[in-house]
């Protein structure tokens, strides 16, 4: 799906997709650049290379819809509209962070934006997303819930338990699997039988399932649009698997191709399939956006990031007296 598909999406949406892709890339690259200062003292799992899945899915969501995620959640949080300042402040451990310094990069939250939480225990937010969808239906709220996770989560029991239940109850949930081929450094070949296609496993639960190119933001957008519409109409859950690739190390700001768990050829193949470069080529070909606009867009985003980093670094740390606060709800 290329330029022809692009024609089915309105220009405003196309520009929005493009802006969000670049924004997430620049934000995570800034984190990578600043991380060696050792002021962000929490693990970070960067979304670089995988941005198109976050952007393509979330562009179909309303602010009142809800998104949950796992350890690699920056892209999902940002694409859903999570506050950038609160995110940077959280990475810097500040009181102004999105969880007041209690969570860090692995526990982002922005309720106003509908980003309903992320946790690093693989697969654990999947049943929670299903429960949130059930609650919305019982309460008569018109919300769709999206659970983002990696392909390793489909090896967890709770994934199967949750997707079975979502289908049983026909809940308004979209399961989005970013298949980046690795669980930390363990490839698919040591984790799932040869020939397994993750989306077919989901289909075994009776759920409407499909597989797409996770580095083609328009394909992600159009596939997610159909699934989300389906959920909104009360026709039940869907499962979308998107093949994509993480560029940087599993956890941290650097590249780790030197340690030998993946080949230079494989990395190069995926780097050439950069979701942003591919989309920009489409845009240029179709005349949607001119090169000078790209430059000003990047400058504008860099300035937003400058401000967010400055906000974070100048924010106070939480008070020591708040160490145990919020252990219980009053």
């Amino acid at each position, binding site marked *: 799906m290329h330029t022809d598909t692009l024609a089915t999406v309105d220009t405003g949406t196309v520009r929005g997709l493009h802006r969000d892709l670049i924004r997430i890339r620049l934000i995570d690259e800034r984190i990578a650049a600043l991380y060696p200062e050792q002021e962000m003292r929490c693990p970070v799992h960067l979304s670089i290379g995988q941005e198109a899945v976050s952007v393509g899915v979330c562009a179909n969501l309303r602010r009142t819809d*809800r998104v949950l995620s796992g350890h690699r959640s920056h892209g999902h949080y940002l694409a859903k509209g999570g506050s950038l300042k609160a995110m940077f402040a959280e990475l810097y451990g500040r009181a102004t*962070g*999105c*969880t*007041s*310094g*209690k*969570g860090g990069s692995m*526990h982002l*939250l922005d*309720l106003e934006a509908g980003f*309903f*939480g992320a*946790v690093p*225990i693989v697969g*654990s*937010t*999947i*049943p*929670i*997303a*299903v*429960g*949130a*969808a*059930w*609650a*919305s239906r*019982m*309460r008569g709220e018109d919300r769709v819930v999206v659970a983002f996770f990696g392909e390793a989560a489909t090896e967890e*029991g*709770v994934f*199967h*338990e*949750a997707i*079975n*239940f979502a289908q*049983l109850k026909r809940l308004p949930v979209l399961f989005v699997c970013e298949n980046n081929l690795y669980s930390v450094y363990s490839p698919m070949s040591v984790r799932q039988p040869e020939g397994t296609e993750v989306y077919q496993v989901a289909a075994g639960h009776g759920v409407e399932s499909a597989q797409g190119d996770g580095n083609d933001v328009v394909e992600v957008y159009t596939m997610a649009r159909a699934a989300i519409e389906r959920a909104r109409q009360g026709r039940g859950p869907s499962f979308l698997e998107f093949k994509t690739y993480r560029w940087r190390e599993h956890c941290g700001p650097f590249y780790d191709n030197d340690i030998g768990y993946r080949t230079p050829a494989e990395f190069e193949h995926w780097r050439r399939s950069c979701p942003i470069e591919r989309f920009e080529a489409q845009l240029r070909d179709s005349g949607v956006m001119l090169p000078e606009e790209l430059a000003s867009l990047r400058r504008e985003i860099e300035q937003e990031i400058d401000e967010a980093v400055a906000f974070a670094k100048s924010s106070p740390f939480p008070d020591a007296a708040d160490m*145990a*606060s*919020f*252990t*219980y*709800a*009053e």
Partner: protein
Amino acid sequence: MSRDLKFVQALNEATDLCMAKDSSVQIMGLGVPDPKGVFGSTLGLQEKYGAERVSDLPTSENGMTGVAIGLALAGMRPIVTHIRLDFAVLTLEQLVNQAAKWHYMFGGRMRVPMVVRMIVGRGWGQGPQHSQSLQAWFAHVPGLKVVMPTTPHDAKGLLIASIEDDNPVIFIEHRWLYNISGPVPEGVYRVPIGSARVMREGTDITIVAISYMALEALRAADVLASHGISAEVIDLRSLRPWDERTVIDSVRKTRRLVVTDTGWKIGGFSAEIVARVAEDGVAMAVPPRRVCLPDSPTPTSPALSAHYYPRAVDIEETVAAMFGVDLPEVHAPVTIPLDIPDMSFSGPF
């Protein structure tokens, strides 16, 4: 107005009242709407409140606990049932990593108002995996609350308090309490989580008892009284938070402490109580003692389980030894088999 209800009827009535007054309360679990209704505790609820709010579940304990957490985060007040606590061991990830943490780790922005009911089995060959009393595990985790009512009055009052609480509450019920009767007020009332109850006042020794062991402690107190020993029996009722004040004040008065628990001794909640009293510097006339399960899994054969569970006589002998008193060997004759709570119980679980 109070009438006598069984423990199981008190649970049912508490659930019914909460569902009637708050449409966000729902109950779910394997068999909740089935003809047995979790030993009767959920009977009749689906007819009144419908299949969405009173729901059977797939046999997916961990996943369904996650679903319940999602419900709670999104505005519902789910009650989840496990007909044996042992099945809830499958849910530790969701309970410990998620339910206990979301309020804290999201800086107070997320709440998990849910109740997880777990039933501890005993006797009739429940064996190693249908009888475990793992309250100490849950009580170890900040963010969870843990309660274990003994009387029908407290079963109702604590269940209402638990349903209304904005935190995840582990509500542990001992199967041998289900048929005991006692006065239960009508209407809505609450027993505060974290409050113990002095079941019997005494001056010579404090017996802190958890769940079913409170009944054994009361029996023991009767026998001890006939030997001139005045035992104060405290039903702990809540393990997290627990009523340190009531226990410490009592031990200060009696200067002697026995803790009796339905769980194992090593690493058990009894250790927490003894340690806390010791840390408080309460002067004791003799070292404290514990009457808990021996250090093995639960055996199945009645010939073995008869020697496994501590009873009133074990508490009596422990206390007597602390006073240097010899109790006569002969106790009241055993009129019922040792593997059932009373003659109304005919198995299988």
